[in-house]
């Protein structure tokens, strides 16, 4: 099999999976069957394209094959299938005049992120059905057993059918709240990929790419939603730094030590332009402020030249939009430590040490360790680094913390 065919199938997988599955689910009104037929169509593409070449419109080819396969199965099993609860879908396919509802991928993602499903189920379903990740990859991303993810997905699909969660883009009265849930899922997928909770790699590129693709799709379909625009800006501005976060020696580089020439200038420019759009009209959303913070970092020529006053102010704005978030308070304390020196940072961090929500949050210990190190309080810094080491299973992060620990010992 030629590399070209494999690459074409992989690219069609990334670009068209959700579209093919959505179009097939519309026909089958059964997510399981739609998933099977979609997977089947990609397997066939590998075989057929090797012989007859890659079609002009791979997505359309795959959709047709998946839907034909679904029709066969439905014909054969019609009596058996009639007894099962079906996906509630509108009988007629929406036309272009229906606006948002016209894109099958949106129906799919709104169904996967329905608030009647738990957050873990929403994330697993989105990764499996919308991004086309295997159950094994989803399990690896969230450090759970594959059987657990499979059970979670099965249970969620069953609830979609029995509780009749509709396969539909919600109407205007419910859309705002539902978009929020979708964005939270996309954001969680990105942050999980940005620093993998476990394993040999700092970044799980399949997850960050999946999240960026989802955010791009949502922005394309809902260009006037400021929150969607802000989330895309945030993801692009963070993703722009990916190449510099691990050095050529495989070691983690903090923002302070990154080679800024490796940052993706095109992504930064795109993110900054989107952010400007998102801030126009209306008060800023949580994602817009986070994107603004990322933009200040992205546009600073060096770590030392970063506008820390502005960063501290932005964290202040963020804590008003998102009151009571201890993670925001922690990040603000780190920025205060840069603006006013390590003692001020440590003072700002102090009230967070007893915060139950941060118990087990390794970045609190790591931030404290760094401030203590800068103050020359080395034995305390070493203790804090040891504590941070207990709280991460990511090997690249562990190597970094071990190195810092050795320096202060």
């Amino acid at each position, binding site marked *: 099999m030629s590399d070209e065919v494999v690459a074409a199938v992989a690219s069609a997988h990334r670009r068209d999976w959700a579209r093919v599955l959505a179009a097939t689910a519309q026909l089958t009104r059964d997510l399981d069957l739609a998933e099977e037929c979609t997977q089947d169509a990609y397997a066939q593409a590998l075989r057929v394209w090797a012989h007859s070449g890659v079609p002009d419109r791979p997505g359309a080819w795959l959709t047709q094959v998946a839907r034909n396969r679904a029709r066969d199965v439905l014909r054969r099993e019609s009596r058996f299938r009639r*007894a099962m*609860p079906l996906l*509630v879908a509108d009988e007629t396919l929406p036309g272009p005049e229906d606006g948002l509802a016209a894109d099958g991928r949106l129906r799919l993602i709104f169904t996967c992120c*329905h608030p*009647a499903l738990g957050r873990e189920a929403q994330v697993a379903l989105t990764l499996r059905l919308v991004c086309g990740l295997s159950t094994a990859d989803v399990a690896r991303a969230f450090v759970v057993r594959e059987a657990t993810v499979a059970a979670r997905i099965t249970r969620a699909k069953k609830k979609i059918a*029995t*509780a*009749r*969660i*509709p396969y*539909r883009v*919600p*109407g205007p*009265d*419910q859309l705002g709240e539902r978009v929020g849930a979708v964005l939270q899922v996309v954001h969680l997928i990105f942050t999980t990929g940005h620093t993998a909770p476990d394993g040999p790699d700092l970044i799980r590129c399949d997850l960050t790419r999946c999240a960026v693709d989802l955010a791009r799709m949502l922005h394309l379909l809902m260009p006037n939603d400021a929150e969607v625009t802000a989330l895309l800006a945030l993801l692009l501005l963070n993703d722009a730094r990916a190449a510099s976060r691990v050095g050529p020696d495989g070691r983690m580089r903090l923002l302070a030590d990154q080679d800024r020439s490796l940052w993706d200038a095109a992504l930064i420019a795109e993110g900054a332009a989107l952010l400007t759009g998102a801030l126009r009209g209306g008060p800023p959303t949580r994602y817009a402020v986070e994107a603004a913070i990322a933009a200040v970092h992205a546009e600073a020529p060096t770590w030392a030249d970063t506008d820390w006053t502005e960063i501290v102010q932005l964290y202040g704005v963020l804590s008003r939009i998102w009151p009571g978030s201890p993670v925001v308070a922690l990040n603000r304390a780190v920025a205060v430590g840069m603006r006013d020196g390590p003692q001020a940072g440590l003072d700002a961090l102090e009230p967070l040490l007893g915060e139950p929500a941060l118990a087990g949050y390794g970045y609190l210990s790591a931030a404290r360790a760094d401030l203590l190190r800068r103050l020359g309080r080395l034995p305390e810094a070493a203790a804090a680094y040891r504590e941070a080491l207990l709280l991460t299973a990511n090997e690249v992060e562990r190597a970094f913390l071990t190195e810092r620990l050795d320096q202060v010992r």
Partner: protein
Amino acid sequence: MAKYMLLIYGDAAQWEAMTPGERAAHDAAHRAFAEAAGSRIVGGGELETAPSATTVRGGADGDLITTDGPFLDTKEAVGGFYLIEAGDLDEVLALTALLPEVAAAHSAVEVRPMVFHG
């Protein structure tokens, strides 16, 4: 179409402590719900409080055991219900949001689909 049971849970002591004004607003909200739901309401009603419940179960030797009180002895209990017929969950959730028990801090509404025996 499918049927859904809306189980209204809450703290009976707080329901009983409502002032006449609160009670009137509460009843008005239920009337507004009924108007919005229209013919989709198959049935429903307010239940007497849990101490009025009688629970019946079978004993080890096949006896009938009748006990005073609810099956689950909790502070928050079912205080009422609606049986609704609707096309999908979103339709039911939009109606459920109108119920005053959703807004009150001590209560909530559980939405359960009924098994369809075709």
